[in-house]
């Protein structure tokens, strides 16, 4: 029983017959394989840490997160990881190494080599690094298909309630601020209607926050006098509630919150 097969079972990537065989195989063992729990936990962590491939992420959301017990497992894991991250961020560890580290050991080795050898290795290293950079260089995200969501700032028209946006997907228009998965597009374009009085601002900043208060800055795709648009790749959309916080950046660098825009992904 491999970790890969367990993951494939949990994500329902195995054909039905094979899936039944897998269950039977587990049951035939003398005791229930503990490996399943370990792999499941790591799968959840990978999902929460954004380490799953887009296809696996989609399978996780569609095929794994189908029961309340599993949703609960993911929620509890998310709280724990958040706590761990906070603790690790606060902890300041100062370690004074007793022995030379690998950098010191490498430097000593390097200095003891002949000049010609060092020059040859340096050139080879530069070629490898440049080659690797060329192959793995970050390429700009260039989606070709979009789903579009238009949002008004919460409290613009009615009390403090979030205003419904208009979701246009696959030629269909619905008056809702809910985005449905799968998106059937490369990215979600969200157009944020600017509240009155903010038209003089020349620079904007948009921050996305989920219910776990995880924040992420979004790049402004375009802006005009009425709205500001951002793009979210489909692979980064997980089910949940989100708020986009729009701020205007003044010439002196100070920021002013212009509005909050709510939407949910289901």
């Amino acid at each position, binding site marked *: 029983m491999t970790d890969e097969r367990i993951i494939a079972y*949990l994500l329902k990537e195995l054909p039905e017959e094979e899936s039944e065989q897998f269950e039977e195989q*587990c049951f035939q063992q003398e005791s229930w394989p503990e490996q399943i*729990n370990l792999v499941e936990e790591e799968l959840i962590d990978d999902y929460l840490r954004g380490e799953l491939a887009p296809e696996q992420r989609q399978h996780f959301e569609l095929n794994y997160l189908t029961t309340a017990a599993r949703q609960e497992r993911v929620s509890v894991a998310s709280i724990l990881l958040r*706590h761990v991250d906070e603790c690790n961020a606060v902890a300041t560890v100062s370690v004074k190494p007793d022995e030379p580290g690998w950098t010191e050991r490498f430097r000593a080795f390097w200095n003891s080599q002949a000049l010609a050898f060092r020059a040859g290795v340096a050139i080879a290293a530069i070629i490898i690094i440049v080659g690797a950079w060329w192959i793995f260089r970050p390429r700009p995200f260039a989606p070709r298909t979009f789903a579009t969501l238009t949002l008004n700032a919460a409290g613009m028209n009615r009390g403090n309630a979030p205003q419904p946006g208009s979701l246009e997907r696959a030629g269909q228009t619905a008056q809702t601020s809910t985005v449905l998965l799968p998106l059937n597009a490369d990215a979600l374009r969200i157009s944020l209607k600017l509240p009155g009085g903010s038209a003089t601002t020349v620079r904007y900043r948009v921050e996305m926050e989920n219910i*776990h208060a995880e924040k992420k800055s979004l790049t402004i795709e375009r802006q005009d006098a009425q709205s500001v648009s951002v793009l979210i790749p489909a692979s980064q959309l997980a089910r949940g509630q989100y708020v986009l916080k729009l701020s205007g950046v003044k010439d002196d660098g100070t920021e002013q919150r212009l509005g909050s825009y709510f939407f949910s992904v289901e």
Partner: protein
Amino acid sequence: MTNSPQDSSKVSRINEEVLTLFLKALSPDRDEASRHYTSLHLKLVGFFRMKGVSQPERDADTTLDRAALKIAGGALVPEVNRYCFGIARNVARESLRIDSRESSAFLKSLANPVTSPEELVARITNVLQPCLEQLAVEDQKFLQDYCKDIKGRARSVHRRQLAEDMNTTVLALRMRVTRLRTKLADCVKQRSGNIYDV
């Protein structure tokens, strides 16, 4: 005559006679049969947990009760293990159908409207904190080290190093972290009933 997975009042209704017949079907030796029964129960709990049902222990009881009643009723069962597995599949289907209509107290507490994400986080943290404090300090520290946000291959390297430092294997660490997290999750679930009071 079968008991529903949700009907806990019927779970332990099998009588001594039915249980004795079931144990005999597991093994003619009483002690051996008890060991089989316990092992079967644990396997069923593992199976139901993997299926994602909300109460694996209850469903394991239901499965064994149904199997015992069938055997006492004269069903010919050449292989009890396999027979229970067949029943377990049906129980899992029923349970998941019922679960889909109900949400856990914990998820309900998350779904309860909050004024801000910060409020939600504070609410959850208030539940998590006492549960974490129930763990030994070294367990808390271990969880913190093991679950560090390290990406890709560096994570495996980090965990191998951690195992080496602790003079154990990565598998042993994985098992330890899973047990700690299960303990934490049980505590969080238990306390989530009081989530509104925190």
